[in-house]
């Protein structure tokens, strides 16, 4: 089977799975709608201002879309960071990049603003700034002695993550009590229904990050041989790394701005995909977009329903999945480049 056809088959299968999950998630939720009522809304037979129409089209559908975009973005960011550091444990939350982005977003929130598209852009930009500062700090700390040894990288990620989490805590203690609940809820990692215009912005920013990384997929394979070998094969390693870093930081910041710091999606999804598809980034990056979307959508649907009518934070569910995978990878792959 040629490479192109294999990619098409993989994407078709994952796309079908994502659509099926999304459709199923429309029927599940704390507002106990009958399947018939949901179908009536979808086929346009429900009255315009009925409860079921609001629940399905204004609550569930945008939330499903937001979860799919967020999951895809995080998984692609994970593949990007892993290729960049040549290590399967690298991931936005492990590297402290999510914490940096969260700090940036909280700063933007404290500076005021509403909930329009312009405000979303501002949140994402501040988040991006925080992600770049945190990621840059981790890189500088870990590469102090040349190279990026994995233990140093992980420790640097933990330290930078703790630093920014503490800084975020300082800021939240300045917030008045009415807004605190919202910020704490967001900091746990929660997908919430996003209005259509903001959702479009979310998808567009994630699309830019994805495009920055997927176009480099072949070069990322070569980078796995080491920087010197990559240069000798014609890959400009520095430019490649800068591009991947910007793309992965943008993806992380976007998700943090819209859904909070959701951890471990970028660890679990690429790991499972590598087991099935192998190490080729040209398959992994596009597959991660769809599989990550499906994973977070499933986790979010679980979060919505498992303790209904209350809700779990989806970040809790992804951490429960991610922590064991992290331990497994730490025990088995620490010395592996990927």
């Amino acid at each position, binding site marked *: 089977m040629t*490479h192109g056809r294999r990619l098409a088959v993989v994407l078709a299968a994952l796309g079908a799975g994502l659509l099926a999950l999304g459709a199923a998630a429309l029927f599940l939720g704390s507002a106990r709608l009958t399947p018939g009522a949901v179908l009536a809304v979808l086929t346009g037979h429900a009255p315009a201002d009925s409860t079921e129409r609001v629940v399905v089209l204004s609550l569930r559908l945008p939330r499903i879309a937001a979860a799919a975009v967020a999951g895809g973005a995080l998984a692609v960011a994970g593949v990007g960071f892993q290729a960049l550091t040549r290590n399967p444990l690298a991931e936005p939350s492990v590297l402290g990049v999510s914490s940096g982005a969260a700090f940036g977003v909280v700063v933007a929130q404290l500076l005021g603003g509403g909930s329009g598209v312009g405000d979303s852009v501002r949140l994402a930009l501040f988040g991006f700034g925080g992600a770049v500062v945190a990621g840059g700090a981790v890189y500088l700390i870990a590469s102090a002695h040349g190279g990026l040894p994995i233990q140093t990288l992980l420790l640097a990620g933990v330290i930078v993550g703790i630093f920014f989490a503490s800084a975020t805590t300082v800021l939240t203690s300045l917030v008045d009590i009415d807004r605190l609940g919202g910020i704490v809820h967001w900091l746990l990692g929660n997908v919430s229904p996003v209005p259509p215009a903001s959702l479009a912005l979310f998808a567009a920013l994630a699309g830019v990050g994805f495009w920055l990384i997927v176009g480099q997929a072949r070069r990322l394979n*070569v980078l*796995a*041989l080491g920087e010197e070998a990559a*240069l000798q094969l*014609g*890959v400009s390693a520095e430019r490649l790394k800068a591009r991947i870093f910007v793309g992965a930081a943008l993806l992380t910041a976007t998700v943090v701005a819209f859904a909070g710091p959701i951890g471990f999606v970028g660890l679990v999804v690429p790991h499972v995909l590598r087991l099935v598809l192998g190490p*080729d980034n040209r398959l992994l990056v596009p597959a991660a977009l769809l599989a990550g979307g499906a994973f977070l959508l499933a986790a979010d649907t679980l979060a919505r329903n498992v303790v209904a009518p209350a809700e779990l934070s989806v970040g809790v569910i992804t951490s429960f999945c991610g922590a064991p995978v992290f331990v497994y990878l730490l025990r088995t792959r620490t010395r*592996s480049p990927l």
Partner: protein
Amino acid sequence: MTPLAEVRGVHFSYPAPERRRPAPFALSDVTFDVASGEILGVIGPNSAGKTTLIRLLTKVVEPARGEIRLGGRPLARLTRWELAREVAVVPQELPHALPFSVEQLVLMGRYPHAPRRFFETAGDVEVARDAMAATGVLHLAGAPLDGLGGGERQRVVLARALAQEPRLLILDEPTAHLDLRYQVECVALLRHLNRERATTIVLVSHDLNLAAELCDRVLLLADGSVARLGSPADVLDEATLARVYGCAVAVDRAPSGRPRVQLVWPGAAPRPGKEVADPRSR
């Protein structure tokens, strides 16, 4: 005829804090040509500048002074992928635990020929399979790299370099981790490539006898400068080697007529009728 590669008055030093040396190491005023179709050996003691020379020839680092030309064009004006179509390097070792298959690795050699393409074409696969056949690893195409032995790995990396279809092939210690049989195979393979495909070869090695046997000319580096350049018989003489390496050696002729270098172990009696050059006796 223009030489394939020209190195003209090249000076180079690493930025001091990057290297754990007391003084910044430097190549100074290195000048030589690589003639089209030849096998040039580069030898010299540790830290004489052999690895730095490979890095300079492949633009991993750039000269502080002087110029390197490839086919008459300055290296500084070639893009990385243009350079990688002309010059391929077989490194000493692959990174540990690479997850790719043999064929995936060899196909990476096709990158410089179409750097904007996402997937390799059927033509690329054809070239890669030819390269694997040339080094005798075609039957391993689907095998994971991680399970291969040293000799097989070496031939796989050589196949990747050949997939670049280079005019100049640079080998860094090709026999360093190979047992005797693979060393012999490696030499036969390189000779074959040089003769049948007219591939120019630069062979960087600690193994003086390998260089003597395989190379048309030998470049001896010492402390970042060219100590001697010429035929193996011109370069590999007892006095020169004793001076550059700082230890006694004995040189005689191998059955092929090429020089053969042997160490003189301290305390061992010199062989009768053989004069031994020892720098300390002067």
